């Protein structure tokens, strides 16, 4: 006979009460596990799908500049001492301390050209990198397509050096279609394809191969800007920006507030809501444990009196009550882990409003059991002390 056996036998005897206690703990732990797993999955998903959200760091050549205002009216901006970004800068960006968090680096050169006799903006890009980073760019028309064939995925297509891509607005302005020819700065190019309308400035742009555009604009090896898609689960993008600025004295990196960051904010809000909800549910679970253990102690007054009379110390009585709480909490923690994971897996995508797949989060087993044990033991301290302080004479109605 041992204290553990006494606790275990009592649990077996009071099945309904202990089931109630178990449900309280399972709900508490499952809520925490489910919310934690969903938030974790959302963060990982966000990292994995960064390219869907475009760049979040933009690097421009460093320059000194000032705005000219006269009488409150903006007249012009004056830039001087403009430095340039070059091929040599690209490896430096990869080598920053948080370089592993950088997903895509897409350099580009922008310049004004005359296309079919009209002014136009030509953007030289590494097409695969650029369009992987911006998956919302899609082809409306594509040259040399067989009948019934659909335009390809831009991020996978090789665009020939003698071809250009036109935004829908530019195609309309120049009156050209896919497969036709367009003259840019006296050089003829084939229109590889026309992009779907985005309803943004990009609709008016002409896109070409970066090397070709550098040659056409007479700026070989130079970039107007470098866009970087970076995502780090555990470090803020501002940290990456600071590191880039350290390695590129000729560049000015800026964090962009765009989709990824907004999504991150949404996750942060969901996470805060999850913490608040978990707190409330855990508090309720603790109250369930407290009331259940208190009523259990009240029911066992006489029994505790017997223990005390036959030589159990107060400490032994505390041990019995806390051991019972601990035993239930181990089962509650494990069950809560399973239920929480099941809930996260089935309800996760709906709750997160995101196509997330929540994996079985086995590293949560130990924290789940510890959470349940901590909660259960903490909430049982008062009932245990109350039991230990019971007057054995009154408990046995000796008087």
């Amino acid at each position, binding site marked *: *006979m*041992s204290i553990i056996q*006494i606790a275990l036998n009592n649990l077996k005897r009071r099945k309904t009460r202990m089931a109630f206690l178990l449900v309280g703990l399972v709900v508490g732990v499952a809520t925490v596990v489910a919310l934690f797993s969903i938030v974790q999955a959302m963060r990982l998903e966000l990292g994995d799908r960064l390219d869907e959200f475009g760049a979040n760091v933009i690097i421009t050549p460093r320059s000194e500049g000032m705005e000219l205002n006269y009488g409150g009216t903006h007249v012009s901006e004056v830039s001087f001492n403009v430095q340039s970004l070059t091929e040599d800068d690209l490896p430096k960006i990869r080598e920053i301390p948080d370089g592993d968090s950088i997903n895509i680096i897409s350099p580009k050169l922008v310049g004004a050209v005359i296309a079919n006799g009209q002014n136009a903006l030509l953007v030289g890009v590494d097409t695969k990198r650029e369009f992987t980073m911006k998956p919302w760019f899609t082809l409306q028309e594509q040259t040399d397509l067989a009948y019934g064939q659909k335009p390809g995925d831009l991020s996978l297509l090789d665009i020939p050096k003698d071809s250009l891509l036109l935004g829908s607005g530019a195609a309309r302005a120049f009156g050209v279609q896919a497969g036709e020819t367009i003259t840019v700065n006296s050089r003829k190019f084939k229109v590889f394809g026309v992009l779907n309308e985005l309803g943004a400035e990009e609709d008016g742009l002409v896109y070409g191969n970066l090397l070709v555009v550098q040659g056409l604009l007479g700026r070989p090896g130079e970039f107007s800007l470098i866009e970087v898609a970076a995502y780090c689960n555990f470090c803020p993008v501002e940290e990456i920006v600071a590191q880039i600025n350290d390695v590129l004295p000729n560049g000015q990196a800026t964090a962009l507030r765009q989709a990824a960051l907004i999504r991150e904010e949404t996750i942060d809000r969901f996470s805060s809501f999850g913490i608040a909800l978990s707190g409330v549910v855990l508090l309720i679970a603790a109250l369930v444990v407290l009331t259940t253990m208190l009523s259990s102690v009240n029911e066992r007054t006489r029994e505790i009196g017997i223990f005390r*009379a*036959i*030589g159990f*110390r*107060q400490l032994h009585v505390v041990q019995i009550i806390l051991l019972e709480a601990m035993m239930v909490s181990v089962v509650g923690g494990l069950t809560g882990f399973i239920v929480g994971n099941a809930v996260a897996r089935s309800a996760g995508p709906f709750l997160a409003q995101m196509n997330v797949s929540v994996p079985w989060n086995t590293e949560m087993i130990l924290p789940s059991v510890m959470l349940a044990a901590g909660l259960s033991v903490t909430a049982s301290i008062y009932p245990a002390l109350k039991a230990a302080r019971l007057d054995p*004479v009154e408990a046995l109605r000796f008087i």
Partner: protein
Amino acid sequence: MTEVLIKADSLKKIYKSFGDEVEALRGVSLEIYKGESVAVMGHSGSGKSTLLSIIGGLNPPSAGRIEIDGIDLYALSQEKRADFRREYLGFVFQQFQLIPYLTAMENVMLPLTTTSYSAKRKREMAEYVLTRVGLEGKMNRLPNQMSGGEQERVAIARAIVNEPPLILADEPTGSLDTKTGQEIMELFHELNSEGLTILMVTHNPENTASMGRTISMKDGRLCADQAEVVPLAACKAR
């Protein structure tokens, strides 16, 4: 029988209830020797159960002093008193007071729970005393699977399993029929003849027949302390 086991000196106990004070013991002094069997008789409210609880180290007196085997009981801390009870006392309560979810064997092993004996030794000790009280075939039964007499035997086995020098029994036959009550009293007599000191509270005069000495109480005082039973009606509190 010359060595004093229990020495009570001017024990008083006052209970406070809703502002009123009730004097349950009004200065009780007595000595009980090793190997004695003593019955404490008295009507309800005479203070006999209070006296038993004070001797049992469960109920500090309001005044006075009690020594068992030379140990000033209430000079000990509460936890030390618990250790004392485990080593020196065996309780037989009213209505058996067995733990309902433990078998006879487990109930008997309870006082050994907090000792350093091995599990095997605890089991052997429990088996021995259960056999001693005549329950060799019923060790694994739960209390609700046993008769009143059998439960009382389990309660007695639990009281003697840790081999205490003193057994305190509170109305041990109160819940039993006459025949079973007599059997239990015989068992107490046997235990006493083996050297155990027994102090038993009872208001059944028949139980005193097998006891060596009877103390009568009335209104919180001793009114007779002798080998023969004094009719309570004739008892004048001292």
